[in-house]
């Protein structure tokens, strides 16, 4: 240990004696808000080391937690990611099944409310190969009693009619096709007009004189005059009216969602449906009285 030079000994002694007395003072002094001064000083002297120690320890701890302790995290992350993907797929499947169940429940409900109209449920298994024609293909055919010119509907409204049948499939011409048409009438005024497709999502209410009063939002239902569809099935809603010569140009949004068809109902009769006496404008109220036992829908 290095010896202190004699000329500095008194300085060291002075510093030591003063320090002792300062500590003596600090032990006696009590500040109102901070307690005894010696405590304040001690805390002030120790806290930087505590803070530094805490920082160093925290850094080591964070380093350990964020790096070394995460060695198995990638595997856990991969496992969780796989599980998450599987669960997402499962959720999507369940959502699809739930939506399908809702649709089938709607069909079943519609059929139960229309027990006097023979019909069979069919799944849409394909669409038309040509963009020029608006057709779909059903998973049921002649073996299920489906014949050409039979009407096809959903609980929402008219879809179209069967144009070709095969033993197990059938092709349906949608209402939006240029060649398609259905006997219709305004639900409120009961005035009858034909409805036909124009190759676009909206269909057209034809041959309406400029003098006839038709308003946007008016509901259009089947008239039953085409002998295919029963009366008062929803066809659509008037969305656009333009004056024309000699007839108005009226566009209708189809009641059935023809762009997202998955299950449909085929009306199993070629005989003219019996018209009910009702003149009600209530939609989706087929008036045909032909009865047939309900058939089980396609699985």
């Amino acid at each position, binding site marked *: 240990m290095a010896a202190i030079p004699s000329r500095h*000994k*008194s*300085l060291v*002694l*002075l510093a030591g*004696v*003063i320090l002792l*007395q*300062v500590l*003596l*003072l*600090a032990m*006696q*002094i009590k*500040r109102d808000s901070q307690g005894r*001064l010696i405590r304040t000083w001690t805390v002030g002297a120790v806290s930087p080391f505590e803070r530094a120690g805490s920082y160093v320890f925290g850094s080591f701890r964070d380093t350990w937690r964020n790096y070394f302790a995460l060695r198995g995290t990638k595997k856990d992350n991969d496992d969780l990611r796989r599980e998450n993907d599987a669960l997402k797929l499962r959720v999507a499947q369940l959502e699809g099944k739930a939506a399908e169940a809702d649709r089938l429940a709607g069909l079943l409900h519609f059929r139960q409310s229309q027990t006097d109209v023979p019909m069979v449920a069919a799944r849409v298994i394909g669409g038309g190969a040509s963009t020029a024609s608006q057709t779909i293909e059903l998973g049921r055919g002649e073996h299920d009693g489906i014949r050409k010119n039979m009407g096809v509907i959903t609980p929402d409204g008219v879809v179209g009619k069967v144009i070709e049948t095969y033993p197990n499939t059938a092709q349906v011409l949608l209402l939006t096709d240029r060649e398609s048409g259905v006997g219709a009438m305004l639900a409120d005024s009961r005035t009858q007009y034909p409805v036909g497709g124009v190759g676009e999502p909206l269909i057209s209410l034809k041959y309406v004189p400029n003098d006839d009063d038709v308003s946007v939002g008016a509901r259009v239902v089947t008239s039953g005059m085409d002998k295919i569809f029963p009366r008062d099935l929803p066809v659509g809603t008037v969305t656009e009216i333009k004056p024309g010569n000699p007839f108005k140009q009226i566009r209708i949004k189809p009641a059935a969602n023809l762009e997202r068809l998955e299950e449909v109902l085929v009306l199993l009769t070629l005989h003219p449906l019996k018209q009910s006496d009702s003149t009600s404008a209530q939609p989706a109220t087929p008036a045909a009285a032909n009865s047939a036992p309900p058939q089980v829908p396609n699985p």
Partner: protein
Amino acid sequence: MNGAFDLRIGESHIEVHKFRTGAILISALLALVIQAWFPLHFTRASLLDLPLLVTIYFGLSRRNPSTGLLLGTVIGLMQDSLTPTVPLGLYGIAKTIIGYLASSIGARLDTEHPAARFALTAGFFIVHQAVVALTRRILLAQPEPWFNLHLFGAALLNGIIAVFLFLLLDRLRRQS
């Protein structure tokens, strides 16, 4: 050694005085007792700081910084002890520093001349007051004036008293 203020560089030319046995202890105790008793009867006496004067005298005479600062410490702590409103160490610190400074200066200057004693005592009084004020302000958080006319007058008074007191204390020196 003549009676004039004799400034000589080098410790070999400066005499280190020794005192009769118990002279320092008795002088310090007597100064403390008088300091505690005198202001009770003479209000103006509170301007005096006899323990400080004793510290300065023996510091200047003994000319040993270690002895001087320890003597200042003891006298200061005893003065603190006799003053209930003052925490122990307040005057102790101040007189420790004065004891050190006085003995350090005494080791370099011949301080036998009354004028030197007067000037040094007045100066040490001011330094002592500055240390007390610093301690009060920093440690005790108490308002204390650094210096004012009152303290200036006290410094002069203590300087004058020191001239006569030191002559009295010179009689306690052991004859070499």
